[in-house]
Structures are given as structure tokens and as C-alpha cells.
């Protein structure tokens, strides 16, 4: 059974259909790639699945056996879905440790009233959580920066922290929105290694949106291709590589260079 399944997922802003009728299945334990040109609806898809946007009527999203179509973001997160953002959206005035602790919010073992009273059980639970989170920071290599405000970190460290915050939710499904954007190839490779390491360690299912096709092709077991809000292809990398629709619609006509040059120069 699929971990995440969307049926007829649609969203329009004003008259513009950002996502229309996308059916998608993510199998548990896999790395699922989502590609498409700029503006093809990948980010909107993420926002819909994670509850940041409410989908249009007629859409259906199922996650881990729950219908999450009309759930709010925090409810979906509580069911075990975590995501990162292309622009990271870190809590920059909070410390690195606090950032991951916020990620762990749903796993808080005490009630709100208790937390407001600061009972000893709360302090104990917080202490345990702190240790656990330091362990996680150790794994992603940020333990030394635990009590530094997240805003002070460098670009690469921020990306790691964003990842750490998502992992701290102990999710079943992790959605990554362009994790490699802006990184040099070497760093992208490192990041992908970390992601795959985390996937093993925490038994995750991963959906990744990425522009760097090399990365997608080498790490994903299944790839879905979006174009103008619609899914135009889905399958293993080999299949996508040779899919006619993908090449035709998304990659453009494969004209020789000279022909294009002539077309541009009006000759």
C-alpha cells in the first residue's frame, strides 16, 4: 500500500491552475523524485500535500491510511510527514538546538498545562529530548553549534539544520524541496549522502524535488514529471529518460543547435 497517495489533486489561484488532477503514489521505503520545469507546480504540490494550501474540492490525499485532504498543516505533521523548504524558513532568532526541538514538538510527551506549570516530569522529558536532539545534531554535524542562533550559521549549515529540523519530527515521509539549490556539486553530493544516511537510520520514505537531474536520476527509485500542473510521466529513471512525452513537452523539441540559432536570428 502506498504511503502517500493523491487522487485528482488540484489547486488554482485566481484563474490559474497551478496543479490539476495529479494522481501520485509514493511507495514506502523509496526515494521518489519529482521533476519539472520552473512553475510546473512542484512547490504547490508540496504545499498541498503538507497542508500549507487547501486543495480544491474533488481532490483527495491519503497518507499512511489517513485521509488528510482537509487536515491543517500541523495535523498532517503530527501524522508523520515532514518537509523542508526551498528558502529553508529557519527560526533564525532561535538557537540551533531550539530549532530541532521545535521540530520534535509533536513528540512532546507532556500536556500543555503541565508545560506551563513546569513540573519535574516536564523538566525530565525536556532533558531527555534535549539529549536526543543533540544526538541528532551530532549526526548531521551541527552539535558544536547547538546554542548559537540559527541566523548565524553559514549557508550549508543552514541547509543541514533545515534537514535536521525535519528529521527531528521523526517522520515516516520526508519531503525535500530542492535540497541542493545553490550548493556546489561537491556539497550536493555530500548532502545527498547525508540524506541517504538519514533515510537508512530513521527508516524514511523520501520525496525529493530537485533541479539537478543527475542527482535525481542517481538517487530516486521512481520519478514523476510535472508540467503545467499535470503529471505527464511516472516511472523508474530509465523509463523517464526515454519517455516520449517527457522529452517532447518538458525537455522541448530536440532540434539541432544550428536550427535553433537560425530560428533565433530569423534566418
Amino acid at each position, binding site marked *: 500500500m502506498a504511503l502517500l497517495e493523491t487522487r485528482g489533486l488540484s489547486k488554482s489561484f485566481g484563474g490559474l491552475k497551478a496543479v490539476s488532477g495529479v494522481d501520485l503514489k509514493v511507495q514506502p521505503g523509496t526515494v521518489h523524485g519529482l*521533476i519539472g*520545469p*520552473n*512553475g510546473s507546480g512542484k512547490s504547490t504540490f508540496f504545499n498541498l500535500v503538507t497542508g500549507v494550501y487547501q486543495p480544491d474540492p474533488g481532490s483527495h490525499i491519503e497518507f499512511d491510511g489517513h485521509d488528510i485532504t482537509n487536515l491543517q498543516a500541523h495535523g498532517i505533521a503530527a501524522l508523520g510527514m515532514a518537509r523542508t523548504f*526551498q528558502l529553508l524558513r529557519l527560526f533564525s532568532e532561535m538557537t540551533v538546538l531550539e530549532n530541532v526541538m521545535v521540530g520534535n514538538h509533536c513528540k512532546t510527551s507532556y500536556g500543555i498545562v503541565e508545560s506551563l506549570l513546569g513540573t519535574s516530569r516536564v523538566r525530565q522529558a525536556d532533558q531527555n529530548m534535549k539529549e536526543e536532539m543533540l544526538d541528532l545534531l551530532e549526526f548531521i554535524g551541527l552539535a558544536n553549534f547547538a546554542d548559537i542562533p540559527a541566523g548565524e550559521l553559514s549557508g550549508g549549515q543552514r541547509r543541514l539544520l533545515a534537514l535536521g529540523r525535519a528529521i527531528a519530527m521523526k517522520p515516516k515521509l520526508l519531503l525535500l524541496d*530542492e535540497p541542493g*539549490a*545553490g*550548493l*556546489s*556539486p561537491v556539497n550536493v553530493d555530500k548532502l545527498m549522502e547525508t540524506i541517504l544516511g538519514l533515510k537508512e537510520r530513521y527508516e524514511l520514505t523520501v520525496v525529493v524535488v*530537485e*533541479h*539537478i*537531474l*543527475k*542527482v535525481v*536520476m542517481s538517487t530516486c527509485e521512481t520519478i514523476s514529471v510535472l508540467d503545467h500542473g499535470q503529471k505527464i510521466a511516472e516511472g523508474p529513471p530509465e523509463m523517464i*529518460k*526515454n519517455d516520449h512525452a517527457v*522529452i517532447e513537452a518538458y*525537455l*522541448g*523539441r*530536440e532540434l539541432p*543547435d544550428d536550427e*535553433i*540559432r537560425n*530560428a*533565433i*536570428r*530569423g534566418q
Partner: protein
Amino acid sequence: MLNIKEVHSGYGKLKILRGINLNVPQGGVVALLGGNGTGKSTLLKTISGLVPVMEGSIEFDGQIISGKKPHEIVRSGLVQVTQSKEAYPAMTVEENLMLGAYTRSDSSVVRADLERVYEFFPVLRQRRKVLSGTLSGGEVQMLVIGRGLMAKPKMLMLDEPSAALAPKVVLEIFSNIYKISQTGVTILIVEQNVRMALLLAQYAYIIRDGVIMIEGSAEDLINDPSVKDSFLGGTVANTKKSLNS
């Protein structure tokens, strides 16, 4: 025409550009290429004055323009064409175009130039009274280029004219850009669509992590396997390559 020396810039504490050197010759078409978040938009904003220069200098048409306000830079003839989504949706097409001519006081010539832009992009003439928010993506892109032309620029900087457009429309836009360059306007084009940009431009720079990694003539770069392999993802240029890998 445009001469950038060792420019550093960024937002607040965050430094994004770390020593950029770039040169655009008069009448030339130069491409600036790079993926998401590499700093190419920041460079464009730095040139047009929206982002302050921290170090280094920018020279345009024999004058130092680093440190000047954006509107002063526009008046000196260096005009940036913003990304397609950034028209004024609540204004009509013609109002948008007239806004482009804001810096000019020669109103009779402006009228003639408006006609010229309409000839360039006939679709705009048909929709002159329509709110630009209702235009299609390609039409908006034409509108913002036309708006840039209305300022009678010496040099035009285009920010990702191909973004989110169908390949056919991209071709049309690019052919228009080429036509503009033929009228003597110097062009700097910033693109993710590396193949198209390299086919249009004469010379290209590739930016990554705030520094220029590779530069060279378009002819050389388009055939350079290292360019295709390691730097340019998700673009027409290297898709075929990665698909076959």
C-alpha cells in the same frame, strides 16, 4: 560598455556575491548563466542599484555607477527587464509601457516609440487597453521587454526571459531579443536555460556560489562537456546528456 570589477554584495549580513568580474562590450550580447540560488539575480540587482555594492566598482558607459540610486542608473541608459511575473497587473498594457518611458521628457518621440514597440510585439497592440494581469505568460514577458525598450536604453539586462514559458514561446522571445540587439542595444541576458542563452549570446559567464566559475565565448562553452556535466542541471542543454548517461 559595462565593466564590473571585484564586486561583492549581498543583503544585510549575508554576502552573496564574492568578487565578480564581468565585462559586456558595446553592442554585444552576453549571457550570465547559473542555477537557482547561485547569485545571478543578486548580481543583476546589484548592477541596477537595488542591492548596494559592498566592495568593488561597476562602470557603465564610461561612468562609475556603483553607489548610485537605481533611478539614476536607469536615466544613464542601463535598463533592467524584470522577470515576467513582475508587470503591474492592475495597470493596462499601455500604462505599463508608458511607465517604461517615465524617465523621458520627449513626449512626441515617446509616442513614436510606443508604435515601434507595438510593431515589435503586435500582440500588445491588440491588448493595449487590457489589464496586464490578464495576459498570458508569454505576453507578459513581451510586455516587460517592451516596457524596457520604452526607456530607450543603451543597454538592456534581461532576467530569465524564458522562465516558465513553453519552448515555442521561448524561441519567439529569444528571436525578438536578437532583433533588439541588432538595433544597437547592448544586451546582458541572465538565464537558466543555458542552451538557448548560449545559442543567442556571443560570450557567456557561468556563476556559482557568488563567483564566476567559467567564462568564454558561447561557441566554446556550448561544446564544453564540463559545462554540461557539472554545472547546469535541469536545463535543455544538458538534459539529453544526463538522460543518456
